[in-house]
């Protein structure tokens, strides 16, 4: 008989950030301390924006714009960057022991295992996506889902992802404090070239319910398990309430200063292939994100691949060069080579200013 996991499925209403994130934080705790099998939580949030555990929220977001739009903001307990959530974006929380036999080992292995489930779910609705190392799922060079995780109690893990069924790019541009704002001034929205949604890909109105069912079935097939629909027990309810009160409604958590210094820089370099214009977001000594733009010749898929290889990596010259080289192919950016692109990124790094 196949193993039984628990499923907390909430299709009734979109939840507040405090409620959704508190339930997610409870999942690995319950697996570690409440003798629970793995728990999958599938749900949607009210319109909101959520930063990674170690992000500077005031640097990442334009909080006044969030308030003006009535968008909630909060901080999750897993890594990574800013995500926009809402009633048309599937939120997924999974609590599981890292030693679960069906889970591949190591940081890369776990991300890969969970990616396979999501790829299968996308395939079920008719989308051919692929894993873009190290943490994204893409369709034709555009991001459709991102993954993040945290090791929690004992050997248990909280895994987070969000899957874009539909998405408001204009809203994202307005509330995020990124170099995109400057790009927008030039009438160019880089998000639209780098992100896609289930509805954009299929050209039909796929419901969140359909997508959630596809994810549920994909877990059952990929892990050879079956789900029992369930709701939090008494111990879990108490833990959820604790997280809501002590964490997700507290300014000390939401505006936490336990994060690297956020800085941003722009670098311009004239090359044989054209002008390279680099927008670099730095988190301490690491690259949080980079946008490669300019008037050179390349494809958005190739640019995204380069940008992805640099996300959440060290901003040292040799690391930048090695990470670009790891995905580089000839004429990836026509007339530009790896040392030249590295030089442009280092120029952006030199020009960094505090946000």
């Amino acid at each position, binding site marked *: 008989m196949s193993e039984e996991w628990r499923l907390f499925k909430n299709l009734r209403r979109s939840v507040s950030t405090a409620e959704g994130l508190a339930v997610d934080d409870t999942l690995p705790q319950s697996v570690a301390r409440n003798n629970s099998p793995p728990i999958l939580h599938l749900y949607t949030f009210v319109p909101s924006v959520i930063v990674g555990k170690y992000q500077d929220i005031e640097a990442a977001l334009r909080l006044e714009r969030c308030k003006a739009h009535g968008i909630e903001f909060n901080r999750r*307990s897993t*890594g990574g960057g800013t995500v926009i959530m809402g009633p048309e974006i599937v939120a997924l929380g999974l609590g599981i022991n890292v030693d679960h036999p069906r889970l591949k080992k190591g940081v890369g292995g776990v991300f890969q295992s969970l990616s396979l489930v999501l790829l299968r779910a996308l395939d079920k609705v008719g989308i051919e996506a692929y894993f873009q190392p*190290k943490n994204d799922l893409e369709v034709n060079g555009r991001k459709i889902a991102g993954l993040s*995780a945290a090791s929690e109690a004992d050997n248990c893990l909280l895994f987070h992802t969000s899957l874009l069924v539909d998405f408001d790019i204009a809203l994202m541009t307005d509330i995020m404090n990124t170099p995109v704002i400057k790009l927008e001034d030039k009438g160019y929205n880089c998000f639209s070239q780098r992100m896609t949604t289930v509805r954009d890909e299929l050209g039909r109105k796929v419901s969140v319910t359909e997508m959630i069912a596809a994810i549920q079935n994909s877990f059952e097939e990929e892990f050879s398990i079956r789900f029992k629909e369930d709701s939090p027990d008494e111990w879990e309810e108490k833990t959820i309430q604790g997280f809501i009160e002590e964490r997700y409604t507290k300014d000390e958590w939401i505006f936490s200063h336990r994060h690297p210094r956020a800085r941003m820089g722009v670098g311009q370099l004239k090359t044989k292939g054209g002008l390279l214009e680099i927008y670099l977001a730095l988190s*301490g000594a690491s690259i949080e994100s980079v946008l490669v733009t300019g008037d050179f010749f390349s494809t958005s898929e190739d640019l995204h691949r380069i940008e992805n290889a640099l996300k959440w990596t060290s901003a040292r010259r040799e690391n930048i060069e090695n990470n670009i080289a790891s995905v580089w192919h000839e004429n990836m950016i026509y007339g530009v080579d790896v040392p030249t692109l590295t030089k442009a990124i280092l120029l952006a790094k030199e020009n960094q200013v505090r946000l």
Partner: protein
Amino acid sequence: MAEIKGYNMPDELFYHEEHSWAKVEGTRVTVGMTDMFQKEAGDIVFIDLPEEEDEVSQGETCGKIQSRKWIGKLVAPVSGEITEINEEMEEDTGLINTDPYGDGWILVIEAEDEDELQSELKNLIHGDAVRDFVDREIAKAEEEKAKAE
């Protein structure tokens, strides 16, 4: 320096299963993360450290380490008081990657009592057992790879 299957695992150190290492000098214990950890995790982008003067127990999670979009744990290999934090880490956590046993040290724990420390060290991986530990960790990953294929 001992290199085991491509991983640098210095002989004189004691290792916790969660990949923190301990360098023992009397009751002063310097702590960092292993070469195997940093190779697996990739570039370390942030480390959330405890405060000096905090008391920690052996096996307790005393810090968090972010690489990629994963937040991992720094587990105290021994009990005692945290007496020093590597302040260089605030500027460049990449030191864990470039020099895990040197400039990439993370903190110092001062053990209260040498006898207690000696008995705790017996719970850690040291000497010949290190090779088995590395073999076990590699085997886990290979088993999974084989299963996947």
